[in-house]
């Protein structure tokens, strides 16, 4: 539908034959229902059209006839889009009410002024609706991103880098403390700094033996590292043996000692 003029008079053709023109009053011939629903946004819209196009005085519509027509119409449309007919019927009812009130003398208000014109509320609504109709058209005329102009977006080749959580030593300490608090003296912790080195060396030795081959005992020691380190390595090896993590072999007295990880033993 064209957005610049909603109420262009449209004509309905059925099988090439002109069926009808747009309504001349608030009555919608059942044949024209589809067309009217498509063309008008509702009874206010139709009313505005009638006022603007046909110079129709809304109160000049023959109300009795209109009512009769609507009731028949509603009967016919019982199963079909009744809710839409209801909106038009409501409008007709409102017009009838206004007309009947216009026929009655208006009570004078205190101060001698006339009471409110019964048409005022309808007029206010029609004006408000017409204002919005115009605003909608103006909004549609504003340049819209993607429709009337394009937004610039230049590529940036971000090296896709998955953000990994960072942790600090302190967090690790807190985590450990948390475990200990929960374990609560399940056993007495007399772990010392030195033992940590032993544990580290245990891991180191296992890593060296990962190949599964026998490794000469001496190869696991690095003289350069100094005596404390050598001792730690030796203790680590004993600890590993105690935990059945490695196998130590010496085929003859004073012969070479070989070490391999016990995983290799069982893999055989």
């Amino acid at each position, binding site marked *: 539908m064209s*957005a610049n003029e909603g109420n262009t008079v449209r004509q309905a053709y059925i099988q090439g034959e002109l069926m009808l023109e747009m309504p001349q009053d608030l009555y919608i011939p059942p044949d024209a229902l589809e067309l009217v629903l498509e063309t008008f946004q509702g009874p206010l819209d139709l009313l505005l059209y009638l006022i603007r196009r046909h110079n129709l005085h809304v109160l000049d519509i023959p109300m009795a006839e209109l009512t009769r027509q609507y009731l028949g119409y509603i009967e016919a449309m019982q199963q079909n889009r009744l809710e839409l007919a209801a*909106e038009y019927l409501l409008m007709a009812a409102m017009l009838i009410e206004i007309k009947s009130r216009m026929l009655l003398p208006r009570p004078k208000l205190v101060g001698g002024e006339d009471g409110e014109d019964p048409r005022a509320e309808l007029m206010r609504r*029609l004006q408000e609706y017409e204002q919005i109709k115009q605003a909608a058209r103006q909004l549609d005329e504003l340049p819209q991103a993607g429709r009337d*102009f394009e*937004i*610039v*977006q230049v590529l940036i080749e971000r090296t896709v880098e998955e953000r990994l959580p960072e942790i600090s030593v302190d967090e690790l300490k807190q985590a450990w403390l948390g475990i200990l608090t929960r374990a609560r003296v399940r056993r007495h912790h007399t772990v010392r700094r030195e033992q940590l080195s032993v544990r580290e060396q245990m891991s180191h030795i296992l890593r060296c033996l990962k190949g599964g081959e026998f490794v000469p005992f001496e190869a696991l020691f690095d003289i350069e590292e100094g005596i404390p380190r050598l001792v730690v390595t030796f203790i680590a090896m004993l600890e590993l043996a105690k935990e059945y993590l490695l196998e130590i072999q010496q085929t003859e007295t004073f012969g070479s000692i070989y070490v391999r990880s016990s995983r290799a033993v069982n893999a055989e």
Partner: protein
Amino acid sequence: MCAAAVPSMLNENADMSRFKRILEAALLVSAEPLPLAEIKKLADAPLTNRQIEAVLDEIAADWQHKAVELTQVASGWRFRARPEVQAYLDRLNPQKPPRYSRAVLETLAIVAYHQPVTRGDIEEIRGVAVSPNILKTLEARSWIEVVGVRDTPGRPELFATTGQFLDDLNLRGLQELPALQEIGNLLEQNVAAED
């Protein structure tokens, strides 16, 4: 700025031209308009809003003879192609977003000009029921959103327009919407026309 800072003035100029270069790239690359608060993060030394705006003005001036321009919208600054070249750009991408129906546009207008409004308010003004699809269409476009509920029976949701709506229409704020027009008295106008 003060006398003591003079020796570093040269550096400052170099820094500013470097900042301008980076800001321009950021504006070209960014999918969303950049607000001043974001732009500040691009500077290695703290900058005032006025300093940043001066650089933005410089960039805008650099681009004034191009078919792309720097514009300020509700949520910040961004580059856009000038609407007058759209016909050419459409040759490359003939698929255009569809125009909205009158029902959608009128609903949008009511939300834009009368916000915050409930669905009932919209129905009252349009004189017809508002299909949920209409509101969904506008919500899916991120042009309207629920901003609360009215404290009346049923606690109906209140709709308002979004920053995205303003950005998409290249507006800095609701005050830049076309003004609502005064509608004359329909009855009198009508009577006058009849004469």
